[in-house]
């Protein structure tokens, strides 16, 4: 049985027919085709698929898709406005905060959730914001630095 689901994705109205009981991650990737959302576990334990639902960080892989009807969802695909990158994207580039790049979209969204709510976080708050996201490559430090760069007033070049 399929259920019609409609919500806002990065500001655009989207709709899909989802398998009953489907999780939001599969709907975003398979039905709607937003491939910026990566799947890492389908268990709610790695944070790779992190998106924002009505401004709050959530894990689509353990979110029942039909609970999202009428909600506003933000993904990494919506971070950039036309040719202009989001400050977080600039900062991640400047700090070389990505290696394989698979966890990057989810971590960017986790970081955005933090900065949207508190623009000037402490290091501890940054660490907490990404603690649900597994990164196997970087050792986290460059990611923390990149987020702090934005908090400190932007993605200025490193000396």
């Amino acid at each position, binding site marked *: 049985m399929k259920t019609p689901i409609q919500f806002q994705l990065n500001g655009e109205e989207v709709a899909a027919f989802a398998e009953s009981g489907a999780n939001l991650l599969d709907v975003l990737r398979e039905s709607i085709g937003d491939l*910026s*959302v990566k799947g890492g576990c389908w*268990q709610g334990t*790695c944070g790779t698929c992190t998106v924002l639902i009505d401004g709050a960080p959530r894990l689509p892989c353990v979110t029942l898709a039909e609970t999202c009807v009428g909600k506003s969802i933000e993904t*990494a695909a919506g971070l950039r406005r036309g040719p202009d990158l989001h400050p977080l994207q600039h900062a991640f*580039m400047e700090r070389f905060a990505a290696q394989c790049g698979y966890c*990057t979209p989810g971590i960017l969204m986790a970081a955005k959730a933090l900065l949207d709510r508190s623009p000037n976080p402490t290091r501890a708050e940054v660490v907490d914001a990404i603690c649900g996201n*597994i990164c196997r490559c970087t050792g986290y430090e460059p990611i923390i630095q990149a987020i702090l760069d934005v908090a400190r007033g932007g993605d200025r070049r490193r000396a």
Partner: protein
Amino acid sequence: MLEFRKDIFADERDDNLIEIGQPTQRQDILGHVTGTSPFYDDHRFANLLHLKILRSPHAHARIRSIDDSAAARAPGVKRIIRAADVPVNLNTLLSLIQFGKDDEPSLAADVVRYKGEPILGIVATSERAALEAMALVRVSYDQLPAVFDVEEALKPGAPSVNPTYPKNTFEYYGKYDHQKLRFGDVESAFKQADLVLEDRYQMSPIEHAPTETNGSIAVPDTNGRFIVYTSTQALFFSLDTAAKINAMQSNQLHFIGGTVGGGFGGKVDTMTEPLAILAARLTGAPVRYRFSRHEEMQFGSPRGAERISIKDGVMKDGRIVARQVRAYFDSGAYTRLSSYAVVKCVAHIPGPYTIPNVHADVYCVFTNRTPATAMRGFGVTALDFALESHMDKDAVALGIDPLEFRILNAYRDGDMKAHRREAKNCALIECAQVAAEKANWPLRDEFRRLSSRQGGGPARTGGAADRARAPAIAPAAAPPQPMPQRVAYERPTPAAPARTPPTPPPRSAPPPPTAPTPAGSTHGAPRFSSVFGTRRR
């Protein structure tokens, strides 16, 4: 966070370069931060089918019967793949370089040898449909005794894990159950040593834990070819393995990798491609075979555990005069890459130190656990843990500063290594000096003044090589020299003794019916046969 010491070895380096040494941005970074880098699973196909694998719940059991009739009738199920459907259902990864015998089935036919071993595949319209059908498969087993400890596995009467290697050890050169290293004479050196220290170390298995699990999508292409989108770390390795198992010509396969969501050694094994291709051939539709996180954690090959015993003979003045190593690699139920790691491990003994008498026996042992494979630092990581822990104990026992003890024994240009090659391009002493300075680790002046480029030479091993078999490099051949070596890289010299080629052991599996020996043409394979005596016809 990161600084350079360009002053060291400056005379060996050309610093008049334009692009080399620049912190140029990664070519792939924009794709990464915008979520547009193409990973294997970022390709969409109409009517994509999904392959799920029924795995053994037992570590060792004989399969009495399999009833998949109900599963075959379950909604959404397109095809069930059994062992008999696999064209060449016995393989070993390194057959591509003629190393080792085929010992691992893609799908277990009669016996399962580790918990999680694939038994049958279900191809369905959704992963959920495949999983629901899987719950309907009835398999009955006769459980068999299992062994999980490397040393237990070597005892007489231990359960035999892998019929290709019934004694539970990989076979080297068709005659040995381990890889040897013999340099000098450790026994007499232990007698002369002021102090002999022995201890045992145990590495843990490690999961690679890439954020992207192993997976691939096989898509029927025009003209009988198949396009395979894959997470592999080794494109042709996987292509040739998939071709062999499917008895296909390698040019029938078009492998497309791209960005990989982390590998660390866990994506060399080609665990999904062969069956995804087979499923696509049997159904005529695109098929995705993607490990679940649970599968990746428990049934994807881990870094194997090693058990390493070290015996050192040291003198009061701090010289290590003898080192004996006995190590067991836990390969799990099948070989995969552990046999190779054993040789790499032996090559690494005794570590970056110049020791005149070295003796090692390293075993690749089969147990009833998930087959192990390569991981970052393969064959060396565990040995370094053991060696460097033991170095610390040596230093403590001698009352010498642990770092000075290492510098004292560090290998230098011109030294003779235990595998009978001249040490060149060494820099261990300099690393120790620089790190010590940065961390305010007090080193005495004489240790701050030492250099990798001075004071080395065959004499430091007391001509040990001569006392053992013929030295590869005549002591006269290479006087210690402070300047960079002319020779591009180490080579066996003519002085090396000629060896009679070992006799080939019986072959383990019949050749693939239609498949040409897949990689023979592409991997310089014949050369390896002389090394490992496992030439395939």
